[in-house]
């Protein structure tokens, strides 16, 4: 019985993501907005994170934030605070919580929740304007979240 449960759990997680150690969006544990445990167990790659933060097709964080380190990417927005020094202001666990679901840190935040799959009003299928279908997933994968956290940790003043 115990074994069966264990297998079912692993399967359920394994069906949406790559590794068995990956924590699914609905299982992430927030403590005061922070997430202590790595979502994948695999260390994030700051170079990949830098790409995600700047790319319109990936995190598109610069749509709202200015980042001096990304001045090679044109047009940074001014909706959220400047991210320079984010690695000084926040611990790794806090950054993971902020990127996964900023609303756990800042109630009602304008910042989208990048690792969340439930609780949306009229979720769509990406930018098609059509309803979400069974391909619906979080805005960033678990490893992409880890990469972004690793990159933000390098932003020191």
């Amino acid at each position: 019985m115990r074994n069966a449960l264990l297998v079912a759990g692993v399967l359920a997680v394994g069906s949406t993501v790559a590794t068995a150690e990956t924590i699914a969006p609905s299982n992430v544990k927030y403590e005061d907005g922070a997430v202590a445990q790595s979502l994948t167990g695999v260390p994030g790659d700051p170079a990949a994170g830098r790409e995600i933060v700047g790319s319109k097709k990936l995190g598109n964080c610069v749509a709202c934030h200015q980042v001096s380190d990304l001045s090679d990417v044109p047009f940074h927005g001014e909706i959220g605070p400047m991210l320079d020094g984010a690695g000084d202001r926040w611990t790794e666990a806090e950054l993971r919580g902020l990127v996964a679901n900023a609303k756990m840190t800042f109630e009602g935040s304008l910042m989208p929740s990048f690792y969340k799959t439930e609780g949306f009003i009229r979720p769509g299928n990406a930018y098609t304007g059509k309803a979400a279908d069974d391909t619906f997933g979080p805005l960033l994968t678990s490893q992409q979240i880890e990469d972004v956290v690793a990159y933000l940790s390098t932003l020191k003043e």
Partner: protein
Amino acid sequence: MMKTISAIGGAAALALSAAVVTADPVDDTLILNEELELVTRTTAPAHVEELDEVLSGWLFRGTETRAMQADDFDNPGMIFVEKALEAWDTAEGSEGKSCASCHDAAETMAGVRPVYPKWNEAAGEVRTLEMQVNDCRTSRMGAEAWKYAGGDMVNMIALLSSVSRGLPVNVAIDGPVQSMWEQGKELYYTRTGQLELSCANCHEENNGNMIRADHLSQGQINGFPVYRLKNTKLNAVHSRFKGCIRDTRAETYSPGSPEFVALELYVGSRGNGLSVEGPSVRN
């Protein structure tokens, strides 16, 4: 190699700071064809509690785009007004009538645009201008309804707007329209889609700020239809609503849907006091 990279970085940083400098709406006056001064900035109506002033989207556009709108010869939207003038005089449908058969010259429509959407007592419904045009086509002309946000319709709305330019938007919000107005307000403040953003998040809380390369305005609709340099055609109000909701990674509503009629009623009323500007020019 290193040098080249930092040089590019420097150029981008310059572009960036330039964008930030221009982020506030400009202090400029829109004078149409060197004779008619339009109201692009005025005290917010009492029912728009979160804003002190309402501002036309014109104030958020660049110098050249603003100039293009100030002169009918330079405004590409006016070509479509000309097309609608032809349609105005063209008989269609089983009754052999044109718009002109019942309404004379298009100028007699001055004063109509600013009060729509509005209550139609006989039909017992809130009507947008598009709904009214299609009612004339089907019940008076015996012609086919135009597609809600299609080319023929958007041209005709541009004509009807153009003859009201300079008149203040004056959409009624009480009486029989009140419940639909409340519904529109609800939609305006609902955070939709996977990005969980409402109209208010962008256009009320962040107008004047840059979101990536876009300078956020108040999302007013006094300038519709708008000619967009981006897609080089006239764009209907409901098409813009659809685009903005799609950009929140949401399932949108359709042009002409009851939800968008309610949203237009509400958003229209947020611009009460601004001049009708359509067809305007935007990027």
